[in-house]
């Protein structure tokens, strides 16, 4: 990410052009493969038919309700995960011995796939928003927590000692030393968590049947409405893209002062 501004701007323009060409090629392939009869049109409709179905979906009020449901689950789940992840990460790092006491537990809980908890949440909450939230929070919490832990570990001991010798209290050190060091890590965690949260929100709806885009995909599937199903899958893909772009923008805004974003060579 180093180099002059002009250079990076022209490079980003080339990247955008290449990206657009790649996408166009992919769409053309999606049109050609079923048309040439390589796969059955019944099960893999050409791009144009998916696009038509997507247009119909966008004009349907129920689609926007489903989108709203998915985004509600995503946003609330992400907010809880980020809040809890940051607080837990800071507390675990700041309180003496807590990091080592919790390390093995965290390493045990973290790799449990959220999807494996589906039978449990169905028993606890049935097909409701709470089920979605539990899965989303469980999956994205670890992303944030682990990044916060790494970030705080990265604090420069000299800066930390300096702050101590100037008599800064715990809160002041968290605010002025820990937080600025950890923030780039936290932002990475939030970006990863945002993507994971969407995956889990849609998965939960698809498997459990909680209202949202996932449940709509399942209905299209059971109704033999194949183009509609692909259109909804595309819609979730676009949503993921928007969320990623949004998360990157937030990250860049929050870290304008940081060298990774400023793009200047560190001294």
């Amino acid at each position: 990410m180093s180099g002059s501004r002009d250079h990076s701007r022209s490079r980003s323009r080339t990247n955008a052009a290449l990206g657009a060409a790649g996408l166009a090629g992919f769409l053309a392939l999606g049109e050609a493969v079923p048309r040439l009869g390589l796969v059955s049109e019944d099960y893999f409709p050409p791009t144009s038919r998916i696009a038509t179905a997507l247009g119909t979906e966008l004009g349907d009020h129920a689609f926007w309700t489903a989108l709203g449901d998915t985004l509600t689950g995503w946003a609330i789940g992400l907010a809880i995960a980020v809040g809890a992840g940051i607080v837990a990460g800071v507390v675990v790092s700041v309180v003496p011995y807590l990091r080592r006491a919790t390390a093995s537990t965290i390493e045990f809980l973290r790799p449990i796939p959220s999807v494996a908890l589906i039978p449990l949440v169905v028993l606890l909450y049935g097909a409701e928003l709470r089920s979605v939230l539990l899965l989303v929070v469980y999956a994205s919490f670890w992303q944030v927590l682990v990044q916060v832990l790494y970030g705080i570990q990265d604090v420069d001991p000299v800066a930390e000692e300096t702050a101590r010798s100037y008599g800064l209290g715990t809160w002041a050190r968290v605010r002025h030393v820990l937080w600025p060091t950890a923030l780039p890590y936290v932002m990475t965690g939030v970006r990863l968590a945002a993507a994971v949260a969407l995956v889990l929100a849609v998965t939960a709806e698809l498997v459990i049947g909680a209202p949202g885009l996932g449940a709509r995909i399942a209905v299209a599937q059971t109704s033999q409405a194949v183009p509609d199903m692909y259109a909804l899958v595309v819609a979730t893909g676009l949503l993921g893209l928007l969320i990623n772009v949004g998360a990157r923008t937030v990250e860049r805004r929050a870290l304008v002062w940081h060298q990774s974003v400023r793009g200047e060579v560190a001294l």
Partner: protein
Amino acid sequence: MRRLFAGLTVGALLVAASACGSSGGSGKSGKSPSSGSPTTVKVGIIPILDVAPLYLGQEKGFFSRNGLKLSLTPAQGGAAIVPGVVSGQFQFGFSNVTSLMIAQTNGVPVQAIANGVASTGEPGADFGGLAVKKGSPIKSAKDLVGKTVATNTLKNINDTAVRESVRKAGGDASKVKFVELAFDQMPAALAKGQIDAAMAVEPALTTIKSQGGTEIAWPYVDVAEHLTIAMYFSSTQYAQANPAVVKAFQAATAESLAYANTHPDEVRKALTTYTKIPANLLSELTLPQWPAEADRPAIETLEKLGEQDGLFKKTPDLDKLLP
């Protein structure tokens, strides 16, 4: 329509559900549904053909007239519905009869309270059938010996029914190989030759036929003349604590079923509100029957066949299970 019928995979869940299912269920006890503001009941359903009468009855006001407000909650199959009903998130649920019998013999406290859906009983015009692809050498259920048949769940109502078809056609049912496949994936699997036959229900059945496939048997009809396939149920605790609500639900459901039976056009219209079945399939598909009452002799036959197939740990108690 996948996992329409809760399979044995649910068994473990069911047992777990029964263990922690005593918390809910009696939350709204003592309230009479016919007086004052309507009682809201949550019904766990699968968004398929079978539950159209509830949507229709809700629209026609049959439930509000009985003091009930329906909250129809689509769930992905019995795997989510049975635990939901037992733990009290749903007051009522929709499940096939074999699954209810399996649940009961596993000690899960469920009780059927109203009829759900039945086979039309007409060979050649049922909403579920055993189909093969175009040009298949398999001409009858007897030819399935040594072949692979897809059903949506194993060890449940559909493979039991297919076995009966094979037996009735004079074949050895124990030599038929069953694989589990969701209904919506059956047309593709059949076309690609991954399976030799599929026990499909609408709308997948119409998709198969539109691709040139043919039905070789009607397993539901082979089991009984008017086979009751699925019913609405509640937990035993809820039914005991809320007899008035259950009675109101029974009355409104019976009315809805009767109305659906005599107004197929309105059923097809109702289907567009909660499914996405394409218009070309919608006009062609065969609707099931919705009798107001369950057919006890047919369920007894289903029970015997299930026992023969080893589905139950002990004999189901139909007197306790059925309304």
